């Protein structure tokens, strides 16, 4: 046998080893909560595959990543529910076999069919949701005052407030407190929103993303986070139970993220298996309590896999009431979105 033949045979033998099955990889573009090994490793072990996760920090970054990629680079996409129509219109999402997914077990209020379905075809399913509302330190502020932005934005709390640095939910929350419907926001509403945002900024000590807001709250730098919610305080709850959240009387903004399979995927079957795992009761419980941030699972059956303490932190028993008082994220068209982002930048620089 020649050295060349031996090399070829060796290569073939290596390829035939059981470990070679691990060569199958799934590439997913996700929010950071999916990067928790406790969530992903059970799927990898069950299927003998590797899941490569790429976290992004905003929908814009996710869309830009997709635009710069070749079809097939990505198999699974997790994205804010309000952004699903954008990726569907761009032809990026594959149809999901909804009969294979447990959507009947989902909280009906978060199915979001208007976003996830087009021409009767389902392209994504909601996997996790929560609220952009008011997080606060109950040891330092009067919980009654947290029931309205009107009582929060007073001199008493000036300098003790952080604003969550994401324009859509915070502007949505401002709109809700002004009695507007987030779904009907238009350019004419921006002056009133500007006034409200500037009032927030004047009294705010900081404007930060999740970790910065958590740090500010945990270290006592601020006592209130506007735009916060369970995703912000849940991971603090074990050590600092005084960190809590509420939904003001006027209501709050509902955030939801969806998962789907990309049209260009070369691994559609495996990608669908991943989606099925994520929306299964076990996967949902792990996703809900991810180390990056917590949130309510879309699948109600996940409750069977959560502890009473975890459910208490998520306010499991109050969801029906909360959902009835929450409005969806604003879903601006491209022009309004640009104006809202300009306004947000203006607020930050103020």
């Amino acid at each position, binding site marked *: 046998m020649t050295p060349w033949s031996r090399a070829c045979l060796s290569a073939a033998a290596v390829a035939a080893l059981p470990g070679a099955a691990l060569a199958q990889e799934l590439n997913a573009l996700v929010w950071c909560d999916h990067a928790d090994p406790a969530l992903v490793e059970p799927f990898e072990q069950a299927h003998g595959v590797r899941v490569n996760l790429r976290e992004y920090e905003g929908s814009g970054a996710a869309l830009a990543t997709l635009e710069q990629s070749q079809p097939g680079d990505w198999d699974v996409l997790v994205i804010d529910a309000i952004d699903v129509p954008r990726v569907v219109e761009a032809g990026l999402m594959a149809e999901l076999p909804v009969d294979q997914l447990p959507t009947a077990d989902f909280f009906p209020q978060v199915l979001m069919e208007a976003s996830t379905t087009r021409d009767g075809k389902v392209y994504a399913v909601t996997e996790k949701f929560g609220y952009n509302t008011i997080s606060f330190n109950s040891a330092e502020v009067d919980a009654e005052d947290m029931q309205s932005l009107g009582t929060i934005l007073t001199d008493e709390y000036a300098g003790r407030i952080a604003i969550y640095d994401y324009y859509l939910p915070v502007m949505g929350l401002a709109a809700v407190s002004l009695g507007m419907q987030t779904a009907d926001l238009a350019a004419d509403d921006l002056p009133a929103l500007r006034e409200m945002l500037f009032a927030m900024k004047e009294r705010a000590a*900081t404007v930060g993303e999740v970790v*910065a807001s958590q740090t500010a709250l945990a270290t*006592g730098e601020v006592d209130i986070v506007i735009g916060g919610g369970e995703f912000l305080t849940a991971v603090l709850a074990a050590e600092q139970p005084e960190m809590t959240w509420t939904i003001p009387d006027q209501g709050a903004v509902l955030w939801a993220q969806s998962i789907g399979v990309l049209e260009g995927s070369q691994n559609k079957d495996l990608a669908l298996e991943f989606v099925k795992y994520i929306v299964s009761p076990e996967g949902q419980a792990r996703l809900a309590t991810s180390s990056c941030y917590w949130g309510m699972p879309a699948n109600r059956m996940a409750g069977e896999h959560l502890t009473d303490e975890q459910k208490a932190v998520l306010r499991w028993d109050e969801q029906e009431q909360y959902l009835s008082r929450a409005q969806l994220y604003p879903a601006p068209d491209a022009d309004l979105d640009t104006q809202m982002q300009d306004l947000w930048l203006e607020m930050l620089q103020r």
Partner: protein
Amino acid sequence: MSEGARGWGFVAPALLWTVAFFLVPLGVMAAMSFARLDGRELVWGLDWGNYAKLAEPAIGQAVRVSLEITLTVTAVSVLLAYPLAAILAFQVPPRWQRLALLLALLPFWTSYVVRSYAWLLVLSKQGVVNKALMGLGLVTEPLTLANTRFATVTGFVHFFTMLLTLTIYANLVQLPRNYARAAQDLGASGWQTFRHVILPLTLPGIVTGAFLSFVLCIGDYITPQILGGNNELALPQVIMVQLGRRADFPLASALSVVLMGLVTVAYLLSSRWLRLDRT
């Protein structure tokens, strides 16, 4: 092989590397700064609209904020680093100088992000600084130090003072002691010796460190993001907003070109002292 061809052969790897990973990306970035977004569609062309946005208050202010922070940091760092470098060079016995330099650099063995968060905790209302001030009875209420420009400048100065100390120290230890002695023999006072002899001869070290500080500071995103509390945005933060949230690569490119322009101006102003061929 001729002498010239062999020379090109030696230079070729570095040249190719520079072309592939510096000049080409730079060209793409410059070209993209004249493109525009039509919805989510990138339209190439010669559109000055991105540069016109510098006139918008929020973006124009970012340039101003960046310059103010950078110039403050550079000036404060020079003022702190020079005496420190002088003490290391002239007061610390030579056998201890290496150890002193090592100790000065020790904090930089930790991650830049971790160090910034550490400063955030130190400057917070319940942090070491406020507790010390209140313990000494100097203030009755904690001061707002974190999430301010003061915090950003403090975080930067912590880093750049040490960087400048190194460049100035390297200059100072090369100075023959006889220069100072000669000046004093000629009747110069200590201040005159410093002003007319030592300072001019250490200017290259100062300017090199100051230029490095300027470049690193004006392009830094992490420190103002963590320590500034987003209460005002510096230029790199506005660039990141365009990239991370709006996916507006043309505007981000234009702002990056402006950032490079500011660095180029700083280089031109300091180039006299940055020459490699000191004769």
